[in-house]
């Protein structure tokens, strides 16, 4: 899966979870950029991303992820092609 395709899919997940069709995430997007993205919604977001890509984040990855770009890195390293 290309990085571009990963971001397209991430956009869909973010829009569903936050029920906001205007969201577009980029490499540098963090929780500060999206109004409803607090630590509680984060749990649900992570689970939705995992389900969408059919992969699991480890606890260490969830804790250290800094922005959506790093999230995409982990996703790409786990789902292969």
């Amino acid at each position: 899966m290309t990085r571009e395709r990963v971001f397209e899919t991430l956009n869909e997940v973010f829009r569903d979870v936050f029920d906001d069709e205007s969201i577009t995430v980029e490499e540098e997007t963090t929780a500060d950029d999206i109004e409803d993205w607090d630590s509680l919604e984060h749990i649900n977001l992570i689970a939705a991303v995992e389900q969408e890509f059919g992969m699991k984040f480890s606890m260490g990855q969830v804790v250290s992820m800094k922005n959506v770009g790093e999230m995409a890195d982990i996703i790409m390293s786990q789902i292969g092609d």
Partner: protein
Amino acid sequence: MKELEYPFDSEYILKNAKKLKRMLLAEETSRMKKKIAVLGGSTTHDIIRILELFLLHQGIEPEFYESEYGQYFQDAMFGNERLDAFAPDIIFIHTSNRNVTAYPKPGDGREETEALLEEQYGHFAAMWDKLEADYHCPVIQNNFEYPFYRLLGNQDGAAISGRTRFLSRLNERFYQYGETHGNFYINDINYISAAYGLDKWSDPFYWHMYKYCLCLQAIPEFAHNLCNIIKAVFGKNKKALVLDLDNTLWGGVVGDDGAENLEIGQETSMGQVYAEFQSYIKAQKDIGVMLNINSKNEEENAMAGLNHPAGVLKPEDFIVIKANWEPKSRNLSEIAEELNILPESLVFVDDNPAEREIVRQQTPAAVPEIGKPEQYIHVLDRSGFFEVTSLSEDDRRRSDMYRANRMREKQQAEFADYGEYLRSLKMKGTIRSFEPVYMARIAQLTNKSNQFNLTTRRYTQGEIEQAAADKRQITLYGKLEDKFGDNGVVSVVIGHKEEDALHIDLWIMSCRVLKRDMEYAMMDRLAEECQKAGIPKIIGYYYPTAKNKMVENFYGLQGFVKTEEDDNGNTVWQYEIPETYEKKNKYIEIERNGEKDDKRKSI
């Protein structure tokens, strides 16, 4: 909303919760408002978020109080102004085995474990007692799921010092508490976690990452299970099953194949599946569910199928049998009418997706996606349509009572004069102030009655007990018996004294005794109680809902005069009790023996 009906897609619900909530709130439907306090021993955020969806779907609009993280015990025990001001209608305590603070050590004997058990149980029991004393509302308490590891291996569940055994015994103590406290309900996460898969349920990731005692993906199952208890407590249970026959209760089409060739009984695998399903359906009668048939068949063929020697269900198990070629949606509406219940209290079970769709479109009945025959029991059972909160004698006998009603109706047709018919019923009534044995049934009635209900005020058992104990209130329940059987408690009236009048807070009656003079017998007794207490006036209130139009002019019929009416149709009625009150009930003999006069409250 189909997305929230069992079997549902949990991940879809979690991901789209915001959208689902928006859609639910946009539905034009009236919902009862309830205040729910969630006292958590672990994170409760997503539990509340998903529970809200299921409650909205059940017609309950919740307002939540959420304790600070892990503060369930403190909130309950040490006074809490915010919780007091919130005044919950129901309290849910969300604890898990993560909140058990001490376990036996391997090798501990009976005495040490007994002491530990007492200590852990005491922590909870003290809290429940306090909540009961402070809030008088129903309390829902999780039991404990099994631990996610077994220190003693297979002995963990068997040895006295095993943790699994310890949790089982603690659960048993919880159940014993429930047996002696009517307003206390167990949310059985022990069962739900097992059904979900304990390893997945207890995934430590969610505990250490977010302090959830269960995995996020299990929350919809958890919330649905919890919602079933809440909606049952607030009277939102379904009341009757409406069943198709061919390929639903047996394999094959009786009209084509002949009764002798149906798949039912022990000879084939499919026959066994249908026999087990019939046993499951038959057992529903014991929890008060009324069984009915809605089938496209010649009646003769339907009866031949139901009389199959290997069948478990027999024609006499059903109250209404509709076997004809009318649209099933029309049959279903007629069944509701004949049972005197609302169509939304029915659950329609049919293997044919086209029939399900038309009933779903045309009626408000619940229509589960029932799956394959071997899944029927699972889907129906887990849907929780008939969630049991307390089993009253009336529940067990409901089908008999409704059958007796059908016989009364048949008899009625034979009498030229209605009064003659009423006399022939040889009715005996009992009308008394609330008594302890009937508190649960009375509370249940206040939550279930929608049609013959003047104010639609709902009471918990605690509130009923309070009303009974309050000297400023007059409480009456009425039982009715006739030659066909005992109808049990069928009517309830609660009023409170204010200045020189009794204000009626609640007047309800079960529709199955409509036009039997019971409403007059209650009025007679109410007038008598008022006279005894020196109250000259009775003020009645009627608040219209979508369902109680039948009693719009009830007070008028009782001789009240309308004194107020607002734009919403709310009316106020007044009745001056004449010095010589003439009894309105002519056909029910009222039983008065056995009532001690000194027990009656003076006002």
